[in-house]
């Protein structure tokens, strides 16, 4: 009885979370434009998708910004985590507080403050400014995923490598980096998904001429979203799902072989 209740509860929760997504996917196959009426199955919107320059362009911008910002944030963040980890207590505390600021700041304030910076320094808002903004909000997540791995590391590992004749550079590449790699990958993936999904900060740091998917959806929301957008989201959703399953499968395989 209580078992049934628990499962039923969880099922309801998941239903709540998935219904809108299912609706969205179903709509993308709907022949008509109506959101509520089913007018027959069609791949029309998927075909439209590849002919819509604005959506393809926005997709391209979203994807490249996600990749580039994840790349830069991962490099900067990993270096920073290693540096901060090597610091003495007090500077370490200061750096971690500074790292937490952007994470506790509401997105809207982050976006606005960056917008003010760009206006103040006359940096034109567009692709580059948006990329910088995405790197900015991603770095702390990378640091916070790498930091625990550094802390878990035997604190003498680095010294052991030096002791065995490795130069600091060699020790960094062959001892520290491999040990924190899982954290680095987590940080990179997290950055990538955060950047893909960001709306608020992008909204304030780009110009109407350079739109990523989120800002494009926002500007179209009033006119009514075309099912073309639904088709794209459905595709992206499935792509991410496949990616996750693949990563998971690999992780399991690695575990088994060990």
């Amino acid at each position: 009885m209580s078992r049934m209740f628990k499962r039923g509860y969880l099922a309801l929760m998941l239903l709540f979370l998935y219904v809108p997504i299912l609706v969205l996917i179903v709509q993308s196959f709907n022949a008509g434009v109506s959101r509520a009426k089913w007018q027959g199955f069609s791949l029309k919107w998927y075909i439209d998708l590849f002919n819509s320059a604005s959506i393809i362009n926005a997709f391209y911008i979203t994807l490249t910004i996600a990749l580039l910002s994840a790349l830069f944030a991962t490099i900067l963040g990993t270096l920073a985590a290693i540096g901060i980890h090597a610091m003495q207590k007090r500077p370490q505390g200061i750096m971690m507080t500074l790292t937490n600021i952007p994470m506790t700041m509401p997105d809207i304030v982050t976006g606005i403050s960056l917008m003010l910076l760009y206006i103040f320094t006359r940096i034109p808002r567009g692709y580059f400014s948006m990329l910088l903004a995405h790197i900015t909000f991603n770095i702390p997540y990378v640091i916070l995923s790498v930091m625990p791995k550094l802390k878990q590391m035997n604190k003498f590992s680095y010294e052991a490598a030096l002791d065995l004749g490795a130069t600091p550079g060699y020790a960094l590449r062959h001892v520290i980096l491999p040990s924190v790699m899982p954290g680095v990958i987590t940080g990179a993936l997290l950055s990538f998904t955060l950047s893909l999904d960001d709306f608020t900060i992008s909204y304030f740091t780009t110009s109407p001429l350079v739109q990523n998917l989120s800002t494009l959806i926002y500007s179209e929301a009033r006119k009514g979203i075309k099912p073309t957008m639904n088709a794209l989201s459905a595709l992206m959703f499935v792509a991410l799902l496949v990616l996750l399953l693949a990563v998971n499968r690999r992780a399991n395989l690695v575990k088994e072989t060990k």
Partner: protein
Amino acid sequence: MSAMAFPPWAVWLMLLGLAAFAGMIALSIRRNRGIRRTLFAFPYGLWIVVFTLIPLLLIGYYAFTDRSGAFTLDNFRTFWDSNFEMRKQMLDMGFDPADLGIARGNVNMDTLIYSLWMAFLCTLICLAMGYPAALFMADRNFKLGSTLVVLFIIPMWMNFLLRTIAWMSLLEDNGLINTLLGALGLPRMQLMYNSRAVLLGMVYNYLPFMVFPIYNALSKQDPKLSEAAMDLGANAALTFFKVTLPLSLPGVISGITMVFMPSVTTFFIPRVLGGGNTEMFGDLIERTFLSADNWNLGSALSLIMMVLILLSLTTLRKFDPEGEGGTMI
């Protein structure tokens, strides 16, 4: 795609940063002891200063100045009294605003209070819905638990604007729910364009942020603890309230933080599901900046928002001084 070309100043900025970094490394090669690892944090330190601290200072600067750049507290007065500017002008023109029936304007204050109230409700509902879910999934006898948690994450990969818009097709007057109700012969309901719809959208978006930290805290708990409690004579309910719940509090605190903070500043959701008559503080800030083009007032509002959030964070941290609450990841 000409907009994507890096402007020349950016190249200079990057070169400057790189040169500074290289200089620091060169300086630090002390008597062949190699580079100091702490220097790896240098580029990031520079980054924080340029992209976090200076922007924050700018908000502070605009909040305490007027359009001409002179120091003023008027922005905060306007926050308290949205008619402040108007009354000031009238006084300048020689009218007594009270005679004209212009009283204190409480639009900004009311929006803030409404936002806080909505965020509070959203957090409460998320907690009420999320805690049992986390508890059931963290049950060690429930093998599917860890898989289900992933199912809670996946929806967040769908663009949140689209997910919110998808609710429109469910809630609209001609939407799915009303069509279903109609088919069952029940009266149709006005589901959209009210606070309840906004609340629904918020809960929908932020629920996973409540579930993860609690799930993390619960699944890390040593099952021997509750076994010990049972062994000492506590029944299931007592074990839950005396052992499991208190030990999961760090997760709860972290969940509350992660839901409450974005809730207060929610923007977009009220516009889509609330239809404009349920403006929240995030929308107000955005509107002040971009529609009213009043950066000074907008900055003051942002500053107030941040102070409020910092206050609530420090209050919450008191319950979890170790900061052990599981985070999202």
